[in-house]
């Protein structure tokens, strides 16, 4: 795939603050690319530079191979659209909000009406044309913002934390729309987020940004399956354990993580290590489990959290483990707080950080 946007050694200063520091990055055509990083890491600045809203202090930006400069910046701006984290809406109707960019592009009234209707359908806000945008709920306002960007059918869609602080229903509508737009219209999407789960589920490639610097770029598989120290430094990883590891005869290692709990890992590593087990890699059962899993523990449920389609269960097995199972499994197993369960995970599911 060809690259759509490329940052080459881009640096951006705001007074004495360096928001971006020598960033080089390529986003390919038709991909969903995630920029992951904590608040204040430079994600928004990067997106604004890609959107040609602000200029870098130094470095170069290329759009479809063409270097962006003062003479073509406004044209480049029309090829991308950004949805801001803090919902920005014109103080007028939903229709006029969405029609704004289309009017600037000299679309006919008929085309504008048609497009507004189509994008409102995409974000499930049919019939909202005459409503005052600022009177809508936060989630609906963000969906209007997304619809307004989608109406322009730009080559590049830049989303800055599009689901931050929204309820699960609105999050799922927005995520569904993002995936749909990418699949159906081949729109290249760059999304800034600090939501690891979201980045992993809808992204193809991702970059980690910390303190204005890109510290890792790769496929979602590369980044999320084996989290790096960089990712662990800001992402709220679950099931992270530290302990002393010793190599076994079989070639695997046994890590003493304290309280009499030892976990086996397929890695051959001795000494002090920090490991991580993904909550969805752990299975639970009410009866002892007979399987190939090298790690089996008995524990008691101490906390249950409901996350729409999945349930997160905290189990105390000497050490606390977070397990993620589908809501259906959760209901079938009739689990409650204080239920005794067995949990199991493979040695190969234990990753070092």
């Amino acid at each position, binding site marked *: 795939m060809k690259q759509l946007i490329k940052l080459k050694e881009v640096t951006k200063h705001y007074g004495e603050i360096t928001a971006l520091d020598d960033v080089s990055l390529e986003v390919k055509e038709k991909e969903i690319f995630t920029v992951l990083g904590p608040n204040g890491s430079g994600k928004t600045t990067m997106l604004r530079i890609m959107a040609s809203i602000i200029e870098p202090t130094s470095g170069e930006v290329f759009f479809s191979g063409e270097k962006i400069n003062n003479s073509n910046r406004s044209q480049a701006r*029309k090829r991308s659209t950004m949805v801001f984290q803090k919902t920005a809406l014109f103080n007028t109707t939903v229709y006029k909000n969405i029609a704004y960019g289309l009017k600037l592009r000299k679309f006919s009234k008929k085309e504008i009406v048609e497009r507004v209707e189509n994008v409102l359908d995409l974000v499930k806000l049919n019939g909202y044309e005459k409503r005052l945008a600022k009177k809508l709920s936060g989630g609906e306002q963000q969906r209007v913002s997304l619809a307004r960007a989608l109406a322009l059918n730009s080559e590049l869609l830049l989303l800055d934390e599009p689901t931050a602080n929204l309820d699960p229903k609105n999050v799922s509508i927005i995520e569904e729309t993002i995936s749909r737009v990418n699949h159906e219209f081949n729109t290249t999407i760059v999304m800034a987020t600090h939501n690891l789960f979201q980045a992993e589920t809808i992204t193809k490639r991702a970059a980690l940004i910390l303190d204005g610097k890109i510290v890792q770029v790769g496929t979602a598989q590369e980044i999320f399956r084996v989290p790096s120290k960089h990712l662990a430094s800001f992402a709220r990883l679950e099931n992270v354990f530290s302990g002393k590891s010793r190599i076994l005869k079989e070639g695997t290692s046994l890590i003493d993580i304290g309280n009499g709990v030892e976990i086996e890992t397929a890695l051959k590593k001795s000494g002090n290590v920090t490991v991580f087990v993904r909550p969805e890699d752990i299975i639970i059962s009410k009866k002892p489990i007979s399987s190939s899993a090298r790690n089996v523990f008995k524990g008691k449920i101490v906390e249950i959290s409901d996350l729409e389609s999945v349930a997160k269960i905290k189990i105390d097995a000497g050490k606390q483990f977070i397990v993620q199972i589908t809501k259906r499994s959760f209901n079938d197993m009739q689990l409650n707080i204080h239920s005794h369960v067995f949990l199991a995970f493979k040695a190969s599911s234990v990753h070092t950080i």
Partner: protein
Amino acid sequence: MFIGMKTFLGKQLIKGIFNALIGMPTVALGLILYLLFSRSGALGFLHLFPTLQAIIIGQAILITPIIVSLTASAVESVDPEIKDLAKTLGASEIEASLAVLRESRSGVILAVIASFNRALAELGIALAVGANIRGKTQVLTTVIAMEVNRGEITYSITLMVILLAIVFSINTLTNLLQRRIK
């Protein structure tokens, strides 16, 4: 609009000066203009005293601080993201600035109404540089003042009702227009 949208050295000082000038007594401004426009004044060669043009110039000066201060405040109160939003939707710098101005229209309309009311209701400038010449430089307020002095109370009340009707009609129409624009 420039003061509201841009950040520059001395911005607060300029805003402070305009804010202070809002309270300028019309009599004081009228006297200053009289001294400038009268035959022996610095601008006496323009032969503006006593003319309607002198009243218009005086009232324009009177309302400038109101327009500037209220418009700047209205523009400043607009969400700072609006300009970037307009840009990312394809607007040029000028179009983006117009989008900000459109967002601040309530404040801008308020500035226009306040200025209109101030100009219509003022007496000091019209008397000082217009000299209240019947059929030439009289305005509603100066006529009312003169008729009150002459004891023509009924006539004065009639003129006052006309003046109030104009003010209320313009304000009502502007409010209606503002609602329709949204």
